């Protein structure tokens, strides 16, 4: 039983090192209990941290999906205006986003998994800490310092192993979360820099939106001119309605769409 055995020996020797501290073994009980409670709150903080990272990734997925929808709309509009080149550009950008979204979804699932694992670990540790506390009080009430040692060793063995296990779980979750946070930060920067999109104001949107807008305002002018030539004044609402490209109105809508503040974490 070589690999399992080696692993067990190493793990146990590390876990036990944490303990031998106090002169009076009964003090060691309190000391250990204190460490258990500390570890328990550390795991709970770990659960909260992982949840925060997961929510951040979820938000990014939502933002990128919004971008995807917008690019689809732009492609439709561009096609309706006979600009296949613009439509192609919009769809190319959209396919670039799809990879990012897939990647983020995978991260989201991984973080969710870590969150669940840590939650379970925290429940197990809590049950063991409570069992230990009961045992500790019994030992302190029943035995003298000299007698207590063997009982204490019994009580320690299980809990120290659990503490090593939980400590490892927290550390692994922290490592994974840190890696993902670095990538999430990069995505936030992309979104904020407008490389993915920043349609914060009319006329200041991305280049596709700008071009679509200028196309539709040109056709507005043509439509109004045609109306004037034919001697009838178009009713105000029909400036856009009379536009040969039905996309004119949605362009302004999309471009003016308020952007969620970039770079929120």
């Amino acid at each position, binding site marked *: *039983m070589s*690999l399992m055995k080696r692993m067990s020996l190493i793990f146990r*020797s590390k876990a036990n090192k944490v303990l031998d501290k106090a002169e009076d073994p009964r003090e060691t009980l309190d000391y250990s209990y204190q460490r258990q409670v500390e570890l328990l709150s550390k795991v709970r903080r770990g659960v909260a941290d992982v949840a925060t990272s997961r929510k951040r990734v979820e938000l990014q997925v939502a933002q990128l999906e919004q971008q995807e929808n917008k690019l689809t709309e732009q492609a439709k509009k561009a096609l309706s205006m006979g600009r296949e080149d613009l439509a192609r550009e919009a769809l190319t950008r959209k396919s670039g986003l799809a990879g990012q979204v897939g990647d983020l979804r995978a991260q989201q699932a991984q973080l969710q998994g870590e969150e669940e694992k840590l939650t379970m670990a925290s429940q*197990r540790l809590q049950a063991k800490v409570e069992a230990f506390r009961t045992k500790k009080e019994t030992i302190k009430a029943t035995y003298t310092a000299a007698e207590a040692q063997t009982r204490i060793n019994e009580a320690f063995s299980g809990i120290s192993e659990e503490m090593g296990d939980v400590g490892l779980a927290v*550390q692994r979750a922290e490592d994974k979360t840190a890696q993902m946070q670095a990538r999430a930060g990069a995505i936030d920067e992309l979104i904020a820099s407008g490389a993915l999109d920043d349609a914060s104001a009319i006329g200041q949107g991305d280049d596709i939106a700008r071009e679509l807008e200028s196309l539709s305002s040109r056709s507005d002018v043509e439509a109004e001119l045609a109306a004037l030539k034919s001697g009838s004044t178009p009713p105000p609402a029909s400036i856009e309605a009379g536009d040969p490209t039905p996309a004119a109105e949605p362009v302004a809508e999309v471009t003016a769409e308020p952007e969620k503040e970039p770079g929120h974490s």
Partner: protein
Amino acid sequence: MIIRILGEGQYDVAEGSVDGLNQLDRALEDAVDAGDEAAFTEALAGLLSAVRGSGAALPDDSLEDSDLILPPADASIDEVRQMLTGEGLIPG
């Protein structure tokens, strides 16, 4: 015999199942020695599911020591190597 799967919990496994586990353990060790990540993943999954299948989960509030400790289900070959050298990973 009590076996702990790190990150997962403890199982009480009947002595009769240990031979089967030993074979799976050897496959795992070979994979670690060969640095074969695919074989490692398969061997680890096989060993852990054999433990889960043949053992009964201990209640959360038990304070029993484990006879054997196994790596977490999502461990990489490098992590297991580090665990075996006693460096890193396990907080001391």
